[in-house]
């Protein structure tokens, strides 16, 4: 009784500490890059090239920059950058430059009449292309033609700070080819390949035959496989290093403890190998790994590979939206920033639409198959399997504690925005996918949380998934989700293999004997809100048809004794009876 009270008090202290840490997450920095505007330098060269910005690491160069005025976007509006370009940016600079070159008269369309030409170049630094619905826009009279890149999906063209409606815009790609687009009612151009955008675009607009305006737009994003990319990976590398050190320490500490205990518990045979060949069984697990790897790649480099981004699809998974290269958007941002949700009705609808569709169609299948944070934990788990290091096996009591932590996490996740915190600073996912895609992000407490995720995921499979608030919300709809886990209580021998294999510690899978009715024993629905449909229970189930994953009532993966045995039994050797030593 006393123990319980002490435990409760300890947990309350832990919960409060966790909340406080989450609130001050931004101050408890794990890794801080220089402020973007501090690290950026701007230089202007007159090299005869067309007016454009280019990036070399953090140095921005304006080419063809004679007779130009350079503007910088600040919080207060447009400011002129003085001629000592570098390190003289306004203090509230927000990461966009524009250079304007006027007073050129040339004949560009070959009709013999010289036109007024205004050349403009604009650039957005990568971090300003963030998750905000409103992209960086000068909307100033000084910059007559402006394109605003929104959501990595569309350009809005402004002429004299007003959207250009239903007009022809010629877009010249970096390789010189030209495409003609027509803006729609709100002045938007859609359908440009993202990789073309990354290489730099020139938009040309002729409001009247005697005026030609062109704007070169460059976004700072072409960063992959460069030194810059490596430097963006630095915090993630540090996280992995710290995790490895933690794991090694843990292993040695445990060895020491067990030495004192004199029991052979905890023997850790690192690098011990069983040399017999195991049969490879192609199955659900293989498919799951393929999907996980694919979705991991798509959620990190997706838009780079496909050239498009589906920003209205907001998958409710922990794929960091600060990574602008991912194929879809993530719903985690919306859910953790409910206070700013009321930004635009369209977005809210898109968000709830995707969320509902995902929750009903897939449910926590997303956790098991798509979520990059889940993937990285599975990789950590596989690493332990390869090293044969002892794990930490949880029992009911510890799972109950994790469930309590999940509630705290849920409160933090949903509520932190309302009290003025930012969940992103606390979120471990921020350390993962933006870094791999080459985005330099300073990490708050999230870096430390990521270390915890990796280390705990190493010793306990998918540990974070047990306390994941987003997964919990996604799992709420498990009753109407199309994926189900079904059990045949008659075939089941209640060997507990499923419980042992389950990364989420769902015990009811093996204890349930009756479904809704007393006679419902052959096809019991054992799906719970925790189930991530990873199929491990079915893989480890040695009884024919005892467990099955169904989709729309159709069995897609069924337990099979022969398949189960094949995973374990080595191939029979040719020599008779010489298997033993």
């Amino acid at each position, binding site marked *: 009784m006393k123990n319980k009270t002490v435990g409760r008090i300890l947990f309350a202290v832990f919960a409060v500490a966790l909340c406080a840490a989450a609130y001050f997450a931004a101050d408890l920095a794990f890794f801080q890059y220089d402020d973007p505007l501090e690290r950026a330098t701007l230089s202007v060269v007159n090299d005869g090239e067309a007016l454009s910005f280019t990036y070399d690491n953090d140095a921005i160069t304006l080419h063809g920059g004679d007779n130009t005025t350079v503007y910088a976007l600040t919080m207060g509006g447009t400011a002129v950058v003085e001629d000592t370009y570098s390190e003289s940016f306004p203090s509230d600079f927000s990461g966009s430059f524009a250079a304007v070159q006027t007073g050129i008269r040339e004949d560009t369309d070959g009709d013999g009449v010289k036109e007024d030409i205004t050349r403009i170049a604009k650039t957005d630094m990568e971090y300003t292309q963030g998750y905000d619905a409103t992209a960086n826009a000068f909307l100033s009279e000084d910059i007559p033609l402006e394109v605003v890149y929104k959501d990595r999906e569309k350009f809005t063209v402004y002429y004299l700070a007003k959207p250009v409606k239903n007009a022809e815009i010629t877009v010249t790609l970096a390789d010189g080819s030209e495409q003609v687009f027509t803006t729609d009612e709100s002045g938007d151009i859609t359908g440009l390949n993202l990789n073309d955008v990354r290489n730099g675009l020139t938009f040309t607009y002729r409001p009247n035959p005697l005026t030609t305006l062109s704007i070169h737009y460059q976004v700072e994003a072409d960063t992959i496989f460069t030194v810059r990319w490596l430097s963006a990976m630095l915090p993630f590398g540090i996280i992995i290093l710290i995790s490895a050190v933690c794991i090694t320490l843990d292993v040695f500490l445990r060895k020491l403890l067990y030495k004192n205990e004199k*029991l*052979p*518990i*905890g*023997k*850790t*045979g690192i690098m*011990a*190998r*069983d040399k*017999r060949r195991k049969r490879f069984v192609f199955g659900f697990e293989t498919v799951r790994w393929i999907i996980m790897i694919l979705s991991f790649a798509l959620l990190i480099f997706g838009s780079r590979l496909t050239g498009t981004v589906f920003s209205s699809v907001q998958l409710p998974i922990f794929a960091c939206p600060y990574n602008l290269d991912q194929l879809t958007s993530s719903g985690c941002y919306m859910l953790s920033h409910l206070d700013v949700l009321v930004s635009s009705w369209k977005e809210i609808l898109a968000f709830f639409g995707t969320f509902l569709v995902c929750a009903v169609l897939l449910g926590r299948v997303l956790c098991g198959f798509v979520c990059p944070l889940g993937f990285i934990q599975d990789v950590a788990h596989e690493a*332990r*399997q390869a090293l*044969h*290091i*002892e*794990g930490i*096996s949880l*029992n*009911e*009591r510890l799972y109950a504690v994790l469930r309590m932590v999940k509630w705290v996490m849920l409160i933090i996740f949903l509520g932190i925005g309302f009290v003025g915190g930012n969940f992103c600073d606390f979120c471990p996912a921020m350390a993962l996918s933006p870094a791999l895609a080459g985005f330099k992000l300073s990490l708050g407490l999230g870096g430390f949380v990521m270390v915890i995720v990796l280390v705990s995921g190493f010793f306990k499979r998918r540990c974070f998934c047990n306390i994941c608030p987003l997964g919990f919300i996604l799992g709420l709809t498990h009753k109407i989700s199309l994926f189900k886990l079904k059990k045949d*209580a*008659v*075939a*089941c*021998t*209640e*060997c*507990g*293999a499923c419980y*042992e*294999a389950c990364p989420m510690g769902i*015990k009811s899978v*093996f*204890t349930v*004997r009756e479904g809704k009715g007393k006679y419902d*024993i052959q096809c019991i629905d054992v799906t719970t809100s925790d189930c991530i449909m990873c199929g*491990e229970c079915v893989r*480890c*189930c*040695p009884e024919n048809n005892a467990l099955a994953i169904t989709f729309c009532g159709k069995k897609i993966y069924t337990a099979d*004794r*022969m398949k*189960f*045995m*094949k995973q*374990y*039994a*080595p191939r*029979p050797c040719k020599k*008779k*009876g010489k*298997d*033993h*030593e």
Partner: protein
Amino acid sequence: MNDYDMRKSSAEERRKQRFINKSAAVSVKYLRKIDDLPHKPEALEPFMNILRHIFVDMQGAVKPENTPSVGTYCVMVPPELIYAAGAMPVKLCGGSYTAFNIGDDIAPRDVCPLVKAVMGFESIDVMPVYQECEMMAVPITCDCKKKLAGYLGQHHPTVTLHVPSRRDRDADMEQYVRELYLFSQKLTDLTGVPLSYERLSYACGMTAAAQYELSRFIELRRKAPLVIKGTHYMAVMNAMSYTHISIWTEYMRALNDELEQKIKRGEMASKENRPRILITGSPIVFPNFKLPLLIEEMGGVLVGDETCMGERGAYDPPAIADRSVDGIMRALANKSTRPCTCPTFTDNKRRVYRIMQMLKNYKVQGVIYHVLRGCLVYDYEYRVLEEELGKLNIPVIRVESEYNEEDVEQLRIRVEAFIELIKYGKG
């Protein structure tokens, strides 16, 4: 040595000789009966030879040279652990009538015949398969086993494994894991082979190969329940107790291959119209084969068994979800206790389910519930099973027997009546 001692020892010698003769005679008789059953597969011969080797020739367990034996008294001792330590488990649950008669004098009246037989073997001290054991492992599954462990402890180093009485709590499982760790430490002291992932995984692979063959067999039998006589199959499973698992696997593979061919050719061991019977309850240990033999002699077909010396003996494979020493130990503890249908556990609803599944798999028409006199826990569950099977309209009888041949005729009448009931009763 004085005269008295001389006479005493020679009396002891004579007693031993008498025991050997008698028990060999019984074994020969039952082996012949098994042999005489028609449609014996060719590949059964090695298994019969093993039983002959142990019970007629009075030799030790079939195993490679220099492998110490560890006697086990229940399926709840995971053989993987013993193989991992470089030893070999021998399932010593006795079925000998001769040994039972000796044990009858030592043990109290109400003790079950199985324990009496073991005690008899132990006291007469002539069976090499018992005597060569360097250690005994006794899971405390019932009161008789508890006292048996104490008795064995006087003759051999004995390890007791405390079996939890419930299986749904994690704490109980963890306690059994700890029990297994202690056991493995004792094994390490015995053989000098420390517990390591490599050894454990190797041993698990070895038993998995055997279980793979067993699963293949079950699968074949599910397709064609009549392809082999149940008595033959019980002999196969009994032979497993005294054989190194890799040797047994080879024999089993040959048997499976032969049966596969037979199914292809459509050669069944019995006619289609014979009543298909499932046997469950107390273990049926060679040479106490009177019940299965009676069933087949009376025109029934023994299509399946749910007993610890039969299919249960090696049925449950460890599901290794975590490839580390602890992971394997947990898997072993899990598979030894949780799926076990032993009635020693407080709640055993799933045994009924298991039997229902077997009824479906093997298309069973009647169930014979075998109770060894004094085996209380099995006797308790008869009522539950009768009730459940009544709902399914499957006839079931309770057959109580001892380790002697006096009740054979009485049993014959009951079994015959039961078979007639299935054949004609439902008309």
